């Protein structure tokens, strides 16, 4: 696996979409700058913050329960147009996305990193930074303000660096699209199957699976009575 150099990024960006090796990044504003005009940025692409966010909601129960219904109830959608800003309180998190829509060919994978200057404000933008080959969509950013002060985010400003890598011996080809998060253009709430369905696949019967909603089955973590 090797990092894709700037020259190759530019070449792939100009390929016809019918060429399986083509790369898409749109809108690529300030193209030269985004593609790294200075030598130290030459092998990465700078990406901007998009205008839609999902703010985590305080759940009605004292925990987050990843299940089929969690996508419906876990977040509040917010639009912050260009020119406005979002305040992320200290130690809080928010889901955002890149302004740019990305399509990777099947012979490239990528990693998204916080831009170094942004990282120095103790902002973390990704906890799942790996981008699979053949991915398409605006990249969802799990933004966390790890600092002790509220943080202001302006959509449209650079926030991330995308590094692309070639997969050894892989050949670019068309393949079936994945339907789970099909080419999202806004941040999307996580999609889960119910734990019963996931665990059933590895042979755990339903009646052995404890539900956090049933008190009698929960693991008691409270200290013993003195």
């Amino acid at each position: 696996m090797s990092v894709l150099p700037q020259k190759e990024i530019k070449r792939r960006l100009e390929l016809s979409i019918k060429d399986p090796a083509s790369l898409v990044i749109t809108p690529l504003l300030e193209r030269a700058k985004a593609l790294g005009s200075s030598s130290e940025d030459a092998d990465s692409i700078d990406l901007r913050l998009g205008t839609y966010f999902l703010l985590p909601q305080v759940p009605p129960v004292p925990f987050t329960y990843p299940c089929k219904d969690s996508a419906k109830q876990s977040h509040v959608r917010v639009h912050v147009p260009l020119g406005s800003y979002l305040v992320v309180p200290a130690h809080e998190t928010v889901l955002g996305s890149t302004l740019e829509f990305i399509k990777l060919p099947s012979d490239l994978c990528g990693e998204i990193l916080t831009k170094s200057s942004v990282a120095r404000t103790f902002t973390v933008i990704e906890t799942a930074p790996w981008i699979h080959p053949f991915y398409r969509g605006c990249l969802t950013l799990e933004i966390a303000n790890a600092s002790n002060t509220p943080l202001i985010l302006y959509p449209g400003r650079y926030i991330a660096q995308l590094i692309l890598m070639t997969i050894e011996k892989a050949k670019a080809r068309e393949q079936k699209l994945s339907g789970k998060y099909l080419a999202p253009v806004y941040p999307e709430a996580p999609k889960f199957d119910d734990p019963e369905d996931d665990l059933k696949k590895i042979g755990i019967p339903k009646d052995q699976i404890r539900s956090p909603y049933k008190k009698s089955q929960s693991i008691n973590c409270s200290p013993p009575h003195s």
Partner: protein
Amino acid sequence: MFRLCSDLRPDYPVFSDESRDFFEHIQKLGDKTLKYLESAPNEILKASRLSSTRRQELLDLRYLWESLHEFLRPALDADSLHLPNSLIAALHDRIHETEEWRTYRFTLFHTAEANYLQLPLGMVGDRANDIAALVGAEQFPPGLGHVGIPYSQADGLFLNCTLAHEMAHFIYQRDISRDTENRIDDALDRMVEEIGSLDDDGKSLCQRLVGNWVQEVFCDLFAICLIGPAFSFAFSQLVSASMLIGTPNGVPESFYKFSTSHPAEISRFQYHRKLLAKLGWWKQVRNWSCGPVQVLKTCTQDRSAFSLELDEDLPEKVVPVRLLQCYDEVCNWMIREVPKRVKGCRDGIATFEVQSAVIAAYLQRAIVPSTIIMRGKVIHPKPVTVINAGYKFLFENLRDLLSSIEKEKPDSIESRSRLTGRLELWILKALEDHRLLTGGTVEQ
């Protein structure tokens, strides 16, 4: 109510500039009204002979505010999370290409009806100005229109192409109606000559009917000039025109009926097709294998079954067929005139011809087509091109896209509906990107 309006703070949710202007105006009216009310008792004490005048003013204010009240909440509901912002921005941009309409803007509001509408000119502005005259506030922004969108269609694209028609009503009522009324009068005069005479009430009814029908056709033609056949397809979906084709028991009669307010849908489709042919769009779309194009083909065949279903009886002397001739005369004049008034109504055709297949190749791969590569060149397709290419893809390629997605069933209505929603998001994103890439106004 006045206190609430005076305290409107449209900071969040986010609203378009047009909605903010509307809210700010209402806010100022609320402020001035509160001040007026606070000073009223002292004014009456100072000059008791004015008390009856003041009482009347207070009653008028109450009535006027009551009528404004009903428009405020629906506009507040239509924030940027609940509107197709980039489509609305693209429609504004297209309207502003014509110099004389550069100051026209539209506040969107949600309607509970499953239909689109425009508040007739003056319904909001005149009432606001009546309040302003009483309380000494400034005049309502003159170029600000109000268009209603069903709340269920907040983030869609395709059906919302009918918004262009509603925006056209505002333009018709401000700028076009006078010219058209003259044409209608001329056509009716010729009819009256033939039938001998017609009393004033009868003539007024005929003017009103033909005026209403012609206004609807104008708005259809305007919308086609603005965004091409996409409007006709959206309208076709809105009125379920697929009922016109392939029905074993014949076409439902309702499609042939002229009501007091609207012409028969079949007649409207006939004019759509005429204009599409005149502009050059028809040869681009005529071979599409889809219902809305089939509808346009079918509708040209039959004009004999039109009938009138009116709230009032026509004068005895007026034969419906002859009245419809007057309507046709004016509509045919509009087919010639509307393209002259709307700037850039042919601009999207050439680019559609060369770019639609490439845009489809992007959509086929689930990619937002805001930057496309054609013969090694980077191109940012225009909104009209993207919207119409999107429609073509919806009609002809959605099944192929479904087939290329893991675990999707190409024949499942549920999958098709879900993917149509995705397709709409990609196209809306392409419209949003286009403004950024071509230096258009910043989104709002």
